[in-house]
């Protein structure tokens, strides 16, 4: 197992880029959708707010794993593989599924930021930045569900790599190492986040 570790770590790092890329794309979709819904929602008592509320509630209540399978079965897949050169069908489906979470989450952040702005509390508006970063970190963690539909990301890579090991204890060790790698990344991210939030609050 130990002799395979450098190969695994190299591959893991390579595939982890997909997790970051998908999370980034989902964040962009979330920012666009969230900005519109957040703006509509912040108009208290208006028709816009009444229209936005059920949409946000629906997106929030939709389990991402289920939504991913719904989209997997409903969206017609592209016939031409050259179209998929930049982004594959499973990647696209995962981005759309995670967007339900990112749009609802970011609409809350935008709505709160607008609320602080109307209140004249411009310092707290800046809290939007760590909150967006927090959403991004959660999205990176959530991209792992893509393993169920064949997204080529770090979790899929780890599972495939472990499939190639004959010994159960080696498999266990490998999955444990992959989990620790994720935990390290997110642990550091959360520390950065706490620091960012602290600095913005202090400012």
């Amino acid at each position, binding site marked *: 197992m130990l002799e395979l570790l450098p190969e695994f770590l190299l591959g893991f790092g390579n595939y982890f880029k997909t997790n970051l890329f998908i999370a980034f794309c989902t964040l962009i979709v979330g920012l666009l959708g969230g900005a519109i819904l957040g703006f509509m929602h912040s108009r208290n008592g208006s028709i816009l707010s009444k229209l936005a509320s059920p949409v946000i509630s629906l997106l929030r209540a939709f389990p991402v794993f289920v939504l991913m399978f*719904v989209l997997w079965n409903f969206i017609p897949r592209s016939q031409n593989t050259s179209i998929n050169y930049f982004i594959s069908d499973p990647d696209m489906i995962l981005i759309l599924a995670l967007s339900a979470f990112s749009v609802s989450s970011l609409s809350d952040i935008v709505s709160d930021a607008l609320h602080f702005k109307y209140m004249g509390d411009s310092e707290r508006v800046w809290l939007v930045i760590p909150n967006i970063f927090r959403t991004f970190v959660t999205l990176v*963690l959530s991209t792992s*569900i893509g393993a169920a539909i064949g997204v080529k990301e770090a979790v899929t890579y780890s599972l495939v790599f472990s499939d190639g090991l004959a010994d159960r204890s080696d498999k266990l060790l490998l999955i444990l190492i992959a989990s620790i790698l994720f935990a390290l990344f997110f642990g550091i991210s959360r520390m950065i986040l706490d620091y960012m939030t602290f600095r913005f609050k202090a400012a």
Partner: protein
Amino acid sequence: MIFLKNVLEFLLYIIILITGGVVFAKSDAPYEQKLGTLLEKSRSQNCANPDGQLAFILCAKKIKIGVRTNYPGFGESRDGKIDGYEIKAAQEIANRLGVMAELVPVTPANRIEKLLKGEVDMVLATMAHTTSRDQIIHFVRPHYYSSPTSIVGPKKINANEWSDLAGRSVCVPLGNFSNILFSEHQVRMMIYDRPDRMVEAFNMRACSLIAHDQSYIYGSILKNARELSGGNTLEEKFSFNEVPWGIGVKKSASKNLGLAIGLIIADMHQSGYLLNLADQTNIQKSFLPQQKNTWKNPNCFDALDISDTSDCLLKPVNLADQPNSFEGSITFFEGWLGKNFNIQVKFPMFSGSNGLKMLINGMAISMLIVLCSIGATLLASYSFYFFSQSKIKFVKIMCSGVRLFFQNSPLILLLMLGYLLVTAILDYSTGVAVFIAVVMIGLLNGANCGSALMDASKTFHFEAKLLDIVAVASVPIRAAVINAAKSSPTAAFIGAPEMLASLTDITSFTGERITTYLIVAIFYIIIVQMVVVITGFYAKRVLQHA
């Protein structure tokens, strides 16, 4: 006298030889002769008002044949041309009828619909002869091919019998009758509506094994094994359920067009034409020599005229879900939706015995996972909080490390970790899969929730009551509980037969996806909304009491 006797004997000998030769010659091509008579009778009809589909086709001088265009070896489109075993057979059938063949691309999802709508006259498109299909269309016999379902995967994966497949992911074709066996053996299915997409997904490791007709497995997957598996050698693990493939025509055409095609196929078997075609197109042919012998046997010459029960004819397979007592009402409702709202949907999960059982089972297991996950989340959060308050530094550090690990690890990896750990001690079963899912969902969300409790406790400058701490941390606790409910379908990843897994199984053998996934979506939205409302109610009560 002797001379006369010899002459008479000689003449008799000649007569016997001639008549025997005629009889022999006649029985050498019995199907061709019968076809000739049938075609002559149909051709004699008035083309202004042809009676029967065969007469209609002969008058139009064209037959529309539904074929596959993405099935290597059988019907594959390459450089604008369609070629393969079925394509060549289709053209030969048209030739023998003396008409032109118009090939119409069909898919497994629309081939029967196109036949019933009259968009094609016959379907020659990798269609297995099952009793459920037999009720809708007429299957021409003899069958032109037969294939079992094979399971293929990398050599390093041990999957030589059904019990080895439990909990594993297998790529399967949509609507395949044999998929019901996978669901019975707790296999996690990934469904694909086109074989090329399925192979692509297998290549991308969406599943560890792939199941398809043996002919396709040999003709397409094992042939390209090196490219597909990234250098790993693939092998056939095992095969099951040999099923005959038949040509479909409308039920109303069974006595004319159906019979004519049946005679052509019998002749193609007898003459070895189909066997040669299989050689030319490089497909598996174990079924064809056996059929050649059958249709050469004089006992089978009249099999097509006598009845469907002849021993020369193969029977359709019966793996369809048996209708339950609601079947009539469900069919009426489907018809009502179609008639009044033009919505063409099916609800096979309500009308079939197995389907309904799996649906109810899936709902019950989903509810159980949601409830237990919420319980496990609350228990884990209290445990993390309790150990974090320990006076022993080692316990505190350990608790913190474990909490951070679960808080920052992806659920899919945690599920796999739990699966590997628990199955080292216990045999894999539904209960074990549910248990692993509940524990892992509980630990992940409990770690977040425990963290919130610890943060909340720090806001008090005195020894606070747990209820007060819970009140301060009510928002993140509620979020963790809701998240536990939302995460519950992920249990399907390790084969827990909850709602998503159950309905995926039902879809795999019924082919109906729209209603199935809408039901899953609605079910989980309702469940999560219920958790939102209930947790909101309790959060308010905690705040009031604190």
